[in-house]
C-alpha cells in the first residue's frame, strides 16, 4: 500500500513536470483546418488526429488550431457556401491565420472561390487531393504560388495483391459504390485501379444501386468472389449514408470477404489490407504547413507527398473468413482482436495476481510487524516494569520535575517520608514547596533556581513538615535532565530522610558540648588553683614584711628605716594582689557532680559511638577487650568519658610517628580485686620517658609542642574525685598503657571530693 501511495504522487508529479520541462519559448502560429465533410466523417477524425499529433510534437512553433467543417455532403449548395464564407469572414476578421490546411478538394475549391476576401495571401496546404487530374490542374494554376498539397493514396494494386494473396481462389470482384460526388471520385479510383486485372478477374458492378438491391446482390455472390467497397455517401435510391454505416450493412450481407481502400473503414466489416492512412495524411499536411510557416515558399514544394499507407487487418474478419494470420504480409497490424480471457484481462489478471501477492506479502509483513510490535510492546512493558520497579522501590523519595513545574514522576516512598502520597504531589505541584518549613524556603528557592538554570546545584538540606505535622530533615540532591539533543527536560531529584542522623548529630553535639563544659570546668579548676598560687605569693610577702616591720619597730630608732622598707613592701604586694584579683574574669559556677551507678563498659561503648568519625581518630583502629561481668561503679558518665577521651587523644599523639598498622588502641576493662574496676588504654607509640613519669599528671606539664598540659591533670582530678587512681606504665613491647581504677558502687561508701 505504501508503495502505491508513493508511486502515484510521483507519477503525477512527473506528468505535471513534463510540459514544464518542454516549455521553450516558441512562436505562436495559428493554423486553420478546413474540412470538406462534417466532424463525424471518420477520415477527417483520423486526419485531424494526425495533424494534431504532428503539430503537437513540432519544436518550432506553438501552433493554435482552428477547425471548420463545410459538411458538403449535406450542404453542397452554392448559396450555402457563400453564407459559410461570410460567416468565416466575420468569424476570423480579427484573427491572423498563418496557414490553412484544406482537406479534400472541395474545401480548396471553396476557399479559392472566396479567396480574394477570405484569408487572402494565407498559404494553403491542400491535403488529401483525391484525383491526379485535379492535382495536375492545380499545378498549372496561378494559385500554385501559395498552394501546395498532398495526394490521397490510390494504390488499388497494393490492395488487390494482398486480397488475392489471401483469397487465391478469387475469380470475381464485386465493386460497391454510391452516387454522391465523393462516391464518384473513389469509384473512379477503383475502376482505373482494377483495369490491370481485367483478364484475370471478372468485375461485378454493384455501383449506383439502391442499398436493398446491393445487399441482396451481395448475399448471392459466388464463393470465388470478393467485394471491394468504395464509398456510399448516397445510394442509388438517393438515400444518404454515412459510408461506414453503409459498410456495416454490406459486410453483414456479403457472403464473401469485403475489402476497401481506406483505413477509416477498418473495424466496420472489411478484412483490411494495404490501405490509405488518413492519420499519415494529416501528419504530412501538418509537416508541409510547418515548412511553409518556417519560410519555404509553397510553390517550391511538389504536390503529391508520400501518400501514406498502412497494412492493417480486422482480426474478427480474419476469423470469419478463416484467414490465417501467418499468411499476412510481414509488418501487418491486426486490430480488433477479441482477446481470450487471458488476453483481454491479462493486465487485470496480472494486476490481480500482483495485488494478491502484494496483499499476501503485506498481510505477512503485517503479521510479522504485528508480532514484532507485540514483542517490542512486551519488551517495552517489561522494561517499563523494570524501570518502574527501580523507581518505585527506591527507599528515598524520588521525583522528576518538568520544566513547566509539573511533576513527571514521584516515587511512592514519598509517603513514608512526608505522609503525602505520590498522587497528592502529582495533582498539586505546589504541595512540595508547601511542605518545606518557612525558614528553609529561601534556601530551597535559591537551589531550585540554580537547578532550573542547569547549574548543577548539588545538594542541600532542609526541613519539611509532614502531613502528620512532624518535622523531618531532608537531604536533597538533584541533577538537570536533558535528552540526547541536550534539550532541558527538567530536574531529577532524590530526597533522603536524614532526621535520625540529624538527631544523632545533635545528640553527639550536645554530648561534646557537655564534654567541653567538663573540660572547661576542670580547666577553670586548674586556673583557680593557679590564681590561688599567684595570689599566695603577695600574701606570703605581705605577712613577711609585716613581721619584719613589727620586729624592726621594736628595736626603736636604728630599725626605723628598715621598718619603712618593710611597710613599702607591704603596700607594693597588696597592690599586686589587688591587680591580680581584678584581672580575674569569668568565675565559675560551682559544679555539683552527680554520681550514679554506671556500667563502665557501656560508658566506653557510648563514647566510642560518639567519637566515631572524629577526624582526630582517623586511621586509628580501636580495639576493645571488655570483661563480660563488671560491678557497677558510682560515677558521672560524662566525666568518665572525658577521662577516656583524654587518654585516647594522648595515645593518638603518642602514635603520631607510628606506622599506620601500629596506629592502634586497645581499651580494656577488668575486675580489680580490691578496687572495683580497672580500665586501661594501651597504645603502641613511643612510650613514656621514665624521668617524666612522675610529672605526667601535673597541671601545665606537657611534652607536646601544643597543648596546655591539662588533660592528664584533669583526668587525675576526675578519677580521684571518683575515689579511684590513675597511673601510667610503659609496655614491655613498646608503647604505654594508662590505667585507672574506679571503686565498685557496692563496696564504696561513695566518692570523696577532690
Amino acid at each position, binding site marked *: 500500500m505504501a508503495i502505491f501511495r508513493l508511486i502515484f504522487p510521483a507519477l503525477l508529479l512527473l506528468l505535471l513536470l513534463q510540459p514544464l520541462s518542454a516549455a521553450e519559448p516558441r512562436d505562436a502560429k495559428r493554423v486553420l483546418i478546413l474540412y470538406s465533410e462534417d466532424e463525424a466523417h471518420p477520415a477527417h477524425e483520423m486526419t485531424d488526429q494526425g495533424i494534431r499529433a504532428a503539430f503537437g510534437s513540432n519544436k518550432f512553433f506553438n501552433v493554435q488550431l482552428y477547425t471548420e467543417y463545410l459538411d458538403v455532403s449535406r450542404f453542397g449548395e452554392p448559396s450555402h457556401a457563400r453564407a459559410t464564407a461570410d460567416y468565416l469572414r466575420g468569424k476570423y476578421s480579427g484573427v491572423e491565420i498563418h496557414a490553412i490546411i484544406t482537406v479534400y478538394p472541395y474545401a480548396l475549391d471553396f476557399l479559392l472561390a472566396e479567396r480574394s476576401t477570405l484569408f487572402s495571401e494565407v498559404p494553403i496546404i491542400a491535403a488529401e487531393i483525391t484525383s491526379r487530374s485535379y492535382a495536375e490542374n492545380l499545378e498549372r494554376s496561378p494559385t500554385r504560388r501559395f498552394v501546395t498539397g498532398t495526394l490521397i493514396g490510390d494504390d488499388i494494386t497494393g490492395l488487390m495483391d494482398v486480397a488475392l494473396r489471401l483469397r487465391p481462389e478469387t475469380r470475381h470482384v464485386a465493386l460497391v459504390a454510391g452516387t454522391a460526388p465523393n462516391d464518384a471520385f473513389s469509384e473512379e479510383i477503383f475502376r482505373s485501379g482494377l483495369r490491370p486485372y481485367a483478364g484475370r478477374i471478372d468485375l461485378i458492378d454493384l455501383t449506383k444501386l439502391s442499398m436493398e438491391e446491393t445487399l441482396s446482390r451481395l448475399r448471392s455472390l459466388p464463393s470465388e468472389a470478393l467485394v471491394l467497397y468504395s464509398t456510399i455517401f448516397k445510394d442509388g435510391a438517393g438515400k444518404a449514408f454515412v459510408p461506414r454505416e453503409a459498410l456495416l450493412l454490406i459486410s453483414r450481407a456479403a457472403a464473401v470477404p469485403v475489402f476497401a481502400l481506406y483505413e477509416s473503414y477498418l473495424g466496420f466489416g472489411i478484412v483490411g489490407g494495404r490501405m490509405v492512412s488518413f492519420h499519415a495524411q494529416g501528419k504530412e499536411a501538418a509537416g508541409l504547413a510547418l515548412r511553409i510557416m518556417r519560410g519555404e515558399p509553397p510553390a517550391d514544394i511538389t504536390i503529391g507527398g508520400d501518400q501514406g499507407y498502412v497494412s492493417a487487418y480486422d482480426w474478427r474478419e480474419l476469423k470469419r473468413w478463416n484467414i490465417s494470420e501467418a499468411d499476412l504480409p510481414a509488418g501487418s497490424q491486426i486490430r480488433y482482436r477479441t482477446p481470450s480471457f487471458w488476453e483481454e484481462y491479462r493486465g487485470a489478471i496480472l494486476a490481480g495476481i500482483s495485488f494478491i501477492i502484494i496483499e499476501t506479502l503485506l498481510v505477512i509483513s503485517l503479521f510479522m510487524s504485528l508480532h514484532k510490535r507485540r514483542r517490542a510492546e512486551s519488551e517495552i512493558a517489561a522494561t517499563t516494569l523494570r524501570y518502574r520497579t527501580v523507581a518505585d522501590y527506591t527507599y528515598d523519595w524520588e521525583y522528576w520535575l518538568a520544566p513547566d513545574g509539573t511533576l513527571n514522576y514521584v516515587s511512592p516512598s514519598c509517603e513514608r517520608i512526608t505522609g503525602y502520597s505520590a498522587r497528592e504531589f502529582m495533582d498539586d505541584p505546589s504541595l512540595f514547596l508547601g511542605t518545606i518549613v518557612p525558614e528553609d524556603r529561601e534556601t530551597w528557592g535559591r537551589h531550585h533556581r540554580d537547578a532550573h538554570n542547569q547549574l548543577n546545584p548539588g545538594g542541600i538540606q532542609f526541613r519539611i513538615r509532614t502531613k502528620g505535622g512532624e518535622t523531618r530533615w531532608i537531604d536533597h540532591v538533584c541533577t538537570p535532565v536533558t535528552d540526547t539533543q541536550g534539550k532541558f527536560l527538567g530536574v531529577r531529584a532524590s530526597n533522603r530522610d536524614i532526621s535520625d542522623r540529624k538527631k544523632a548529630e545533635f545528640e553527639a553535639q550536645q554530648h561534646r558540648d557537655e564534654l567541653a563544659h567538663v573540660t572547661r570546668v576542670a580547666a577553670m579548676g586548674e586556673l583557680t588553683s*593557679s590564681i590561688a598560687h599567684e595570689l599566695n*605569693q603577695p600574701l606570703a610577702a605581705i605577712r613577711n614584711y609585716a613581721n619584719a616591720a613589727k620586729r624592726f619597730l621594736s628595736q626603736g630608732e636604728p630599725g626605723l628605716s628598715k621598718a619603712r622598707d618593710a611597710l613599702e613592701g607591704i603596700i607594693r604586694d597588696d597592690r599586686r594582689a589587688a591587680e591580680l584579683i581584678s584581672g580575674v574574669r569569668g568565675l565559675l559556677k560551682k559544679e555539683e557532680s552527680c554520681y550514679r551507678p554506671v556500667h563502665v563498659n557501656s560508658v566506653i561503648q557510648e563514647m566510642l559511638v560518639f567519637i566515631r568519625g572524629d577526624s582526630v581518630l582517623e586511621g586509628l583502629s580501636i580495639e576493645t577487650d571488655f570483661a563480660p561481668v563488671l560491678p557497677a561503679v558510682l560515677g558521672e558518665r560524662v566525666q568518665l568519658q572525658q577521662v577516656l577521651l583524654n587518654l585516647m587523644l594522648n595515645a593518638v599523639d603518642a602514635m603520631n610517628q607510628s606506622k599506620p598498622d601500629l596506629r592502634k588502641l586497645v581499651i580494656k576493662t577488668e575486675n580489680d580485686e580490691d578496687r572495683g574496676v580497672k580500665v586501661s588504654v594501651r597504645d603502641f607509640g613511643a612510650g613514656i620517658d621514665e624521668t617524666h613519669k612522675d610529672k605526667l599528671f601535673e597541671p601545665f606539664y606537657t611534652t607536646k609542642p601544643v597543648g596546655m598540659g591539662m588533660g592528664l591533670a584533669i583526668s587525675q582530678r576526675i578519677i580521684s574525685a571518683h575515689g579511684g587512681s590513675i597511673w601510667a606504665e610503659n609496655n614491655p613491647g613498646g608503647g604505654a598503657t594508662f590505667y585507672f581504677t574506679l571503686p565498685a558502687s557496692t563496696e564504696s561508701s561513695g566518692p570523696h571530693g577532690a
Partner: protein
Amino acid sequence: MTERKPTIFIVDDDPSVRESTELMLKSVGFNVKTFVSAQDFLNARFQEGPGCVVLDVRMPGMSGLELQEKLVSVKTPLPVIFITGHGTVPMSVRAMKAGAVDFLQKPFEEQDLLDAIQRAISQQRERKSKRDEADELRKRLKALTPREYEVFSLLVTGMANKEVAYELGTSERTVKAHRARVMEKMSARSFADLVRFAETLKTHSTDH
C-alpha cells in the same frame, strides 16, 4: 662546736617573696643570701657552713625539687625547706622523702618558717657533730693494728670473746688483750661506747 652565725639561702623567682623573706629573716638576726634561680644558687658554690636553703618548688628552669636532688649528692648538704604557693601531696611526699626539713604552703606563718629553720640548723649541727665524731673515730681507728681492727670488727657485731677467738683461730686470752688495747686506742670507756662508735662509723662511711 663554737660555730659561725648560720646563713639562710633563699631561692625564689618571685621578688616579693624573696625580698620579704630576706627582710623578715634579717629582722630576726640571720645572715641571708638570695638567689633568683636554682642555677644561680648552684653557680655560687657555697662551702659547707651552718645554715639552710629556703627553696621555692616551682620555678622557671630547674625546679626546687631538682635542686634538692643535686644538693643531696653533696658531701654535707644544706638542709632544705620548701615553700610553695601550690603544693600537691605527691610533690610534698617526694620532697620529704628526699630529706626536706619541711614543706610550707605560702602564705606561711612566720613562726613555722623560723621553727623549720631552727630545726634545720640543729639538724645540720647534729649531723656536723656526728660527722666530726666519725672523723675523730676514723683517726683513732687508723691507730689500730690489723689484728686489733679484726677483733674490733667482730666484737661490735655482738660476738663473745670466745667466739671471736674461734673465728680468728686464736685464744680467748689473746682476744681479751687485743680488746683492752682497742678500748684504750679508741678512748672507749665501756664496751657500749665501742659499739656506738662502730655504729657512727658505719653511718658516715658513705661520706668517704
